[in-house]
């Protein structure tokens, strides 16, 4: 066991077991609801149905319909209710079925939740978590496939969390629920069945602490959420070809652990930033700017970006599949970058 692995293992309180990403989310919610009776879940088909993705199955049986609240199809309405409930002593967790529906809740999230603490001179607080999804390639077409984390990352007052593993999902969701700010928590809908080691006990992962998912020497792959697995697969292939890639996951887009990103960039001198949101004006642009700013004199090449293609997500698999970065694309770009051709 490497030193790093030993440290990680020691930081985990109990023997790890393997569960899925959605089980990890559910477990975090259940543990927090047991711990704090102010925590409740609100959204469409969250109770008996347990959401269309079955992430919340079993919660209503334990906590009852008074704390796992099925709503009408009123995204702005139930998000607004959550803002008011959060301002008055509760800790709501909003379930927004698809990230694409952020369009419908933007006023409540951006003009109300995000600004209330500041505008009130620090008197009012909005301890609210809004869980939603991101990710394409589910053949769901343009209105159910977007990764809109850049939109909310743009807004002061919001915290944005993008877990990539079951372990991170559980630990970060607990931190989100215990935090006194509005938090938008993105789950990769294609990653719900991914498995990973997750301790049974209580643990929380602090915001603003990136995680080096794989150490390496020649190139840094900064990847978020769904793109972390893509980067890790690319790193496997690169290793076979003699290239050592470091994969860094910021885990939270705000607060952002700039130090870890910059330190990795300084070490390898080559960086590719990968996020499933649209590339144009996207998360990759911000991360690349942060890295260029902090590590410019240590870089051997420009920071490269890989995001979703700037098109509405198409339906046909042959079209959809080319809109999202894949391990093959990452490998090819890395080789060009290291060859001084990118």
């Amino acid at each position, binding site marked *: 066991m490497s030193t790093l692995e030993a440290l990680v293992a020691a930081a985990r309180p109990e023997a790890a077991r393997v569960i899925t990403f959605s089980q990890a989310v559910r477990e975090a919610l259940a543990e927090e609801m047991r711990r704090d009776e102010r925590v409740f879940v609100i959204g469409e088909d969250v109770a008996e149905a347990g959401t269309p993705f079955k992430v919340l199955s079993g919660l209503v049986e334990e906590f009852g319909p008074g704390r796992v609240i099925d*709503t*009408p199809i009123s995204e*702005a309405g139930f998000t607004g209710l959550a803002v*008011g409930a959060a301002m*008055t002593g509760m800790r709501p967790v909003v379930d927004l079925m698809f990230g694409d529906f952020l369009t419908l809740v933007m006023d*409540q999230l951006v003009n*109300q939740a995000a600004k209330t603490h500041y*505008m009130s001179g620090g008197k009012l607080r909005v301890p609210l978590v809004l869980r939603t999804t991101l990710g394409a390639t589910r053949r769901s077409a343009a209105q159910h496939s977007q990764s809109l984390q850049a939109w909310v990352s743009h807004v002061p007052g919001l915290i944005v969390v993008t877990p990539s593993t079951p372990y991170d999902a559980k630990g970060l969701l607990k931190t989100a629920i215990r935090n006194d700010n509005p938090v938008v928590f993105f789950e990769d809908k294609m990653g719900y069945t991914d498995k990973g080691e997750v301790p049974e006990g209580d643990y929380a992962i602090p915001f603003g602490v990136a995680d080096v998912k794989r150490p390496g020497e020649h190139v840094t792959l900064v990847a978020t959420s769904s793109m972390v697995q893509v980067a890790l697969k690319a790193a496997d292939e690169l290793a076979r070809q003699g290239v050592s890639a470091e994969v860094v996951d910021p885990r939270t887009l705000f607060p952002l652990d700039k130090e870890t990103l910059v330190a990795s960039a300084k070490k390898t001198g080559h960086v590719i930033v990968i996020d499933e949101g649209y590339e144009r004006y996207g998360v990759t642009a911000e991360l690349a700017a942060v890295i260029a700013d902090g590590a410019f004199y240590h870089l051997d090449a420009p920071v490269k970006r890989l995001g979703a293609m700037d098109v509405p997500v198409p339906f046909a698999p042959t079209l959809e599949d080319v809109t999202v970065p894949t391990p093959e694309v990452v490998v090819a770009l890395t080789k060009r970058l290291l060859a001084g051709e990118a």
Partner: protein
Amino acid sequence: MIETKEPSMSGALRISAEVGSRIYQQMWRIRVFEEHANELYLAGKMPGLTHLYTGQEAVAVGVCEALQREDYITSTHRGHGHCVAKGARLDLMFAELLGRSPGYNRGKGGSMHIADQENGNLGANAIVGGSAGIATGAALSAKMRGSGQVAVCFFGEGALGQGLLHEVMNMAQLWDLPVIYVCENNRYGEYTHFSETTAGTVLGRAQALGMKAFEVDGQDVLAVNEVLTQLVAAARDGGGPALVECHTYRYHGHHVGDINREYYRPKAEELEWREKRDPIKLFGERLVAAGLASAEELAALQAAVREEAAAALAFALAAPFPDPSEVTLHVYA
């Protein structure tokens, strides 16, 4: 079209002299606060602009007199009246209007965002209809906590055009939430008469949901108070939400800078409301007629309020602006 609705002047007053004085004083405090706010704008002493509540005092006071301190309200861009009626201090309100450090929001909110959580005011809101979710959520929270609190959502009839209001009213009715939706129908949304923007009736929107709905003369503070007292008591007992449409009028423009208004509403109409339907004048006359106060006592109340307001304003004008170093304070809790 001018809506004329005869104020109800009949009937003995079922209030004590003490309550009568308080109601009168609260309405007068709003009136005088707004006079100063207008002057501050005209004299160029106020950053930005503001929306005056003058003319609508009976709604805010009639409603808030039916509430306890712990009860919640959410307010609007035209929110000074709600804030005063719910128990706020004039000095801290003036300070906020002027962007000064001791203001209710440390100068970070201004006129359109004053919040006074100690008195249950969850804040004015500059998004029309934007606080409907917050009020309804506060009611959901009160119900979940079993606190017995009630929430009132103040909104102008212009907010009826917003989908959010209808979404949350539906949930409030479904779940019997203790929230009262108070629609202040002052006839105009900005520079447009409400008949040009509103199909059907205001009450009909609630009735379609099976929600209790009442219409009341918003210039009659006791009429407003009576309806609200009943509805608040019912809501506290689990009787669910209600909507109340209060017919009222704003004397000034949409905001302090809206001075030439004849293109959207005739002077004669303004005069009619000011002279025949002024809520403070009408209530004062009723107090005197019922022997609950003398004209001299009312004049003394007025003078005392003027003194309070002048001192409050002087405090605010002398108060410091926030230090620039505070700009990053309270972005996150």
